[in-house]
């Protein structure tokens, strides 16, 4: 079954197309990697899928329901969660408060005004479970702004996982991390069940080749290749784009 369906999506900023006529589908449980050089439109694609931007043209479907014009909070409520390339956390709140906010986001409970948050034992248990996958539970009372980059990246992923999303969009989860820290992120990813579909953007080829079932290669807003890791590794066009060989010839051929 298809979780996401993208049909002819374009996104234009003034005269520049960040995405042009992009179409693909994602089935339940798939791990789909989106790769491409800087400025290829990967983050724009995530913004269009999660609702931070709306497409100039084309349509986006979630389990057959059109969500092209839905605001981000409505999409989040349907079950689309995302992480951000540049850590987008509540820096002046504690790790625990960050996690609690993520857990209650999809619940009507967040409008409850007269019961202190401490009395919701179930939310704290869930926060403990989530944070215990890393060593963040021990640091739960620390302010996020005082944590290391690696810890913030971990929290970034935990926040997007907290709502038990059906689709998880991870924008460069391992950017700027050491090898050990990246391995930790990979561990979290591979621990996810197949009820969660994962789309991720990454420059880290180890992560892409190990974690992805399928790869989509974006270049100047176009999909130039799509296939299994093996197929992509063998694809001459991808080699050109990444190695920069015959770049000009390629550009001339496609425009």
């Amino acid at each position, binding site marked *: 079954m298809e979780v996401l369906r993208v049909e002819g999506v374009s996104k234009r900023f003034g005269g520049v197309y960040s995405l042009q006529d992009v179409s693909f589908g994602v089935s339940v449980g798939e791990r789909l990697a989106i790769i491409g050089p800087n400025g290829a439109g990967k983050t724009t694609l995530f913004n269009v899928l*999660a*609702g*931070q931007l709306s497409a100039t043209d084309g349509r986006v479907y979630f389990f057959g329901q059109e969500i092209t014009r839905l*605001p*981000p*909070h409505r999409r*989040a*409520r349907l079950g689309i*969660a*995302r992480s*951000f390339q540049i850590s*987008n*956390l*509540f*820096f*002046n*709140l504690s790790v625990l*408060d960050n996690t*609690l*906010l*993520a857990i*209650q*986001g*999809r619940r009507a*409970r*967040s*409008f*409850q*005004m*007269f*019961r*202190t*948050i*401490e*009395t*919701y*034992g*179930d939310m*704290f*248990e869930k926060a403990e479970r989530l944070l215990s996958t890393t060593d963040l539970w021990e640091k*739960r*009372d620390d302010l996020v702004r005082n944590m290391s980059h690696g810890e913030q990246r971990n929290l970034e992923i935990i*926040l*997007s996982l*907290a*709502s038990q999303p059906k689709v998880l969009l991870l924008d460069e989860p391992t950017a700027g991390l050491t090898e050990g820290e990246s391995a930790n992120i990979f561990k979290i990813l591979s621990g996810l069940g197949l009820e969660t579909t994962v789309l991720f953007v990454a420059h880290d080829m180890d992560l892409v080749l190990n974690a992805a079932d399928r790869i989509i290669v974006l270049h100047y807003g176009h999909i130039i290749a799509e296939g299994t890791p093996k197929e992509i590794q063998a694809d001459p066009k991808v080699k050109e784009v990444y190695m920069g060989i015959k770049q000009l010839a390629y550009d001339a051929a496609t425009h």
Partner: protein
Amino acid sequence: MGRAPAYRSKRGRLHKLIEIVPHLVIALLLLFLVPLQPTYIQSLATKILIFAIFAMSLDLLIGYAGIMSLGHAAFFGTAGYAAGILVVRYGVDNVWLGLGFGILLATLVAAVFGIIALQARGIYSILITFALGQLLYSFATKWRSVTNGDYGLWGIPIPALGLSSFEWNGTCYYYFVFLTFLVCYFCLYRLVKSPFGKSLQGIREGESRMRALGYNIWLFKYVAFIIAGMFAGAAGVLYAYHSGIMTPGDLAVANSGFVMLMAIAGGVGTIYGPVIGAALIITIQYYASILTPNRWPLILGGVFVLTIMYARAGVGVYFFKLWKRVLEGWKF
């Protein structure tokens, strides 16, 4: 069905003690010591408690939801005028009717203003709250048959509580304000610690993340705006009865700035901060106006500048931190 056990903070009992002791001491002082003081001190304390409610309500916007407002006095003034008009023009001196009508009107005004002000963001939103406040100000000056215009709506008596056999005086009214203050403090204290209050803090810290987590940001801000207007309205009604007169100035930007000064001087983002700020600013205002009847705003302005430069987190917050360090030093 049993509820899951409540979460226990790592900080535990000491943390509770740190919070409870100052609350208890101040409550006991207000309950027993203030009524024994001369009338002018009682009146000063009444005014402090009224403005404490007002400042707390503004703090819900500034310190929690991250919404700046220069029109908060509009709700305060509307409610005060509403209660005053009820007494002066229609002879209704029942305090519950006054409070009910005043708060209702303030809430309605907040509901309308909120729709407009929250369309814009940042500095534009502040300008809209400012403009809407001034709109009500001109209403109050021009609608003379009802508001008495620039002369002010005077002759508002201390209300009866529905007990006719009882002689109402300043001390009784002080206790009434104190009780109302306790109710408001408790409600707001619960509110900021509730899931809703945490959500407001999340919005203050990062709107885009909150949206991505499924929060309808606009709705949260709007509800917070209305609640803040409600509490400001309660303060406005109490103020009308206390001062005996409502003037257009009570609705205007100067009063909004005055209450913002209290909230910031005491410490926004905490519920006790604005209370301490109100006590500080009103006491300074009182004694400064005795010292120099014409130049006291200069002194208040100086206090504001000094606070912003050297105590941006708020005096109340510094007191609290100091007290915490003392207790932790004792090693329980």
